[in-house]
């Protein structure tokens, strides 16, 4: 039998002291450094959202002046997009699991991994500095000429923070691509890889190709703001729409950076909690790559009402419809995986099932926006807000939480209380829908987004949404409490408490620093549940 965890050396107790953490090159420790940082940023962005929803219970605004409200939604967007969602799964679960799932001892470039965390911290530092010294009120989209020539807030500091953090993503993506290509264990061919790895690979492709473009865009914005050279200023011939094209060329693929890792997590959760091989492995794997490629071709759907040519609109519309198809394929394959499975409902599975439904809805509401005729009406309204929150919160955040719960025993060596976890999942599901479903209606009724005050006929739906937000906030606080509690007081976890397939489950919980005593040799397909009894230790 396995020795009790406390007496065994693992990556957590192998060395002590602040320096052993701040100068670590162990991918698992770096994952935890990221986990702590992004959790902080999640709550920064979450506080901004809470204040916004509180403010919006009254048509004339209940809490703050319009200037402050504008800063709140900007900060909420900037922090949540760049400092939470983009790094969330890749930098925490990805960093921890990519080497383990492929049977490697670390990523290809461990020191660059640490560097990427420091770069993230510096970028976050600039952004927090901007928040504390007056904030920024341009919207996370920084549209010109407002952001370049009219805003009086900390645009440059914020843009610098985002610019710097972009390099963190680039280095993470670079590390993952090289690791997955060059460090797979013997026998682990591409089509035996867990689908989480496929999704990390696809995400990394987008990191590599998309992030540099936002970097150069923000760089140009900063130069224009500093030097007033007028790249985007119509008065000297600049084109404000050029900014939008450059911005969305990254920011659309960025939303796929935010969802592809979540989809990878869901593939792992669905298979583990139904003890079945994924249905249509090849289709799911290729759909991740298809999404990554197509994501670069659709950015113009954010600009249908800017006056771009009708023909450009047609092209972007048809491509936007096309990018929906691979996601649909995944949803059907996940659902089919459940068929004749052996399904258990621990919290990670509840999150996964919630994801499938909410992502379906969020994705389908994207079709309303890919359709040119309806987008004309819906663009710039709360319908858009609801659409992307369904995918990013109902989708990505739930996948993130599901993954955190699933791999928590592996990461910490402790079990969390599943009863509380299921309760929190249910609260989050209810709170989420109450917050964002009314916003679809608000949008169709015509309430524009980014409004600090609104006509009174929209109040009922706003109050519903704010009520939901308060429930959602409670739902998010509960895991923070019991997960932290479990680190100290939770029962010890075995190597494979869920009875799941995957190389990460074949090593103790928590793993030793070098991950595996001996590099495993892979002889079976991914999720080979039916091929023999799963080692349920």
């Amino acid at each position: 039998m396995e020795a009790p965890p406390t007496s065994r050396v693992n990556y957590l107790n192998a060395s002590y002291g602040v320096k052993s953490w701040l100068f670590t090159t162990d991918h698992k420790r770096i994952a935890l450094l990221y986990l702590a940082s992004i959790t902080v940023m999640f709550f920064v962005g979450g506080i901004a959202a809470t204040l916004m929803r509180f403010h919006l219970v009254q048509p004339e605004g209940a809490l703050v002046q319009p200037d402050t409200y504008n800063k709140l939604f900007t900060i909420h967007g900037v922090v949540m997009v760049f400092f939470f969602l983009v790094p969330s799964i890749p930098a925490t679960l990805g960093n921890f699991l990519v080497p383990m799932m492929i049977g490697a001892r670390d990523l290809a470039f461990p020191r660059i991994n640490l560097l990427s965390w420091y770069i993230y911290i510096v970028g976050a530092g600039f952004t927090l500095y901007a928040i504390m010294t007056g904030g920024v009120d341009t919207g996370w989209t920084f549209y010109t000429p407002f952001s370049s020539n009219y805003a009086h807030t900390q645009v440059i500091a914020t843009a610098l923070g985002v610019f710097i953090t972009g390099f963190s993503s680039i280095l993470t993506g670079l590390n993952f691509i090289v690791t997955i290509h060059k460090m797979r264990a013997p026998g682990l061919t591409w089509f035996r890889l867990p689908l989480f790895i496929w999704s990390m690979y696809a995400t990394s492709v987008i990191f590599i190709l998309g992030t540099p473009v936002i970097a150069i865009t923000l760089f140009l914005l900063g130069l224009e703001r500093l030097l007033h050279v007028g790249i985007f200023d119509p008065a000297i011939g600049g084109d404000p729409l050029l900014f939008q094209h450059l911005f969305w060329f990254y920011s659309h693929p960025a939303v796929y950076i935010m969802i592809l890792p979540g989809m990878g997590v869901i593939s792992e959760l669905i298979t583990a909690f139904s003890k079945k091989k994924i249905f249509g492995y090849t289709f799911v794997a290729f759909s991740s790559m298809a999404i990554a490629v197509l994501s670069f071709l659709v950015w113009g759907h954010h600009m249908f009402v800017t006056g771009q040519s009708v023909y450009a609109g047609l092209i972007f519309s048809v491509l936007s419809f096309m990018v929906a198809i691979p996601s649909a394929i995944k949803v059907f394959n996940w659902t089919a995986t459940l068929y004749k499975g052996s399904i258990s409902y621990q919290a990670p599975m509840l999150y996964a099932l919630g994801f499938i439904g909410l992502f379906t809805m969020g994705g389908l509401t994207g079709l309303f926006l890919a359709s040119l005729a309806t987008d004309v009406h819906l663009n710039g309204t709360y319908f858009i807000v609801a659409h992307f929150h369904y995918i990013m919160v109902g989708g990505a955040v739930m996948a993130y939480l599901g993954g955190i719960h699933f791999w928590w025993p592996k990461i910490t060596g402790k079990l969390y209380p599943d009863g509380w976890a299921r309760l929190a999942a249910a609260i989050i599901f209810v709170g989420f829908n109450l917050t964002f479903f009314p916003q679809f209606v608000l949008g169709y009724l015509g309430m524009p987004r980014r409004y600090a005050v609104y006509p009174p006929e929209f109040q009922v739906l706003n109050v519903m949404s704010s009520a939901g937000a308060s429930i959602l906030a409670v739902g998010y606080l509960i895991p923070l409490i019991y997960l932290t509690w479990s680190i100290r007081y939770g029962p010890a976890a075995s190597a494979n408490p869920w009875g799941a397939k995957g190389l990460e489950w074949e090593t103790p919980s928590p793993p030793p620093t070098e991950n595996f005593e001996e590099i495993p040799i892979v002889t079976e397909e991914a999720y080979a549940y039916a091929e023999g009894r799963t080692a349920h230790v």
Partner: protein
Amino acid sequence: MRKGARRMSETVSSGLPAHAERHHVGHGPELRHHFEEAEQQHEASTLGMWVFLATEILFFGGLFTAYTIYRSFYLPGFEAGSRLLDVKAGAANTAVLIGSSFTMASAVHAAQTGKRKLLVTCLILTMILGCVFLGIKYTEYAEHWHEFQVPGLHWDSAATFFKNAPNGSVELFFCFYFFMTGLHAVHMIIGLGIMTVMLILSWRGRFAEKYFSPIEISGLYWHFVDIIWIFLFPLLYLIGGRYQ
């Protein structure tokens, strides 16, 4: 089967798993322990540099795209601006950089064949040529400053550069000129920093036939910076209609 998932026959021939078999086989200090073999490390480093260069292409690509779009809007102004650039300096810089790529490639070859003195010499030559490039660039910038051709900082908005070219569009051209060559120069400076480190390590005898990967990937970076210039020179200096 690709290198990434190593041939199973290699690993199970002795009945021992790969790690145990290779762990105590002699390898140099340069093998980092998360890699199983030096070959794997070398391939990983090289792939890593290529992926990084891909990101650089997209980084410069954004600027190139914006430049192309504005050039199509404001052709007279961009041509006027282009004619104000010093083609001789640009051509000299192009020759300098191509030369430095030659010396860099020689350095890589020297490292591959274990010739330490030649390696050090070639690295020094590369760095000298890099500094010459930056020096010529500096004189160009100084000249533009003198002529009030620096947008935002030192610009003569009353100047008439060309009959059909509004001042604003010439200013836009110079924005791109300074951004693109400036960003390139920053990359050159970073390249010189990398070369300094490589020089020190080479001097200390760190590289030989068995291990020269850092020289190789530094060479990749240097060649990339050279190639960016090969694109910048015609785009900025040569297609301004000056040779009609």
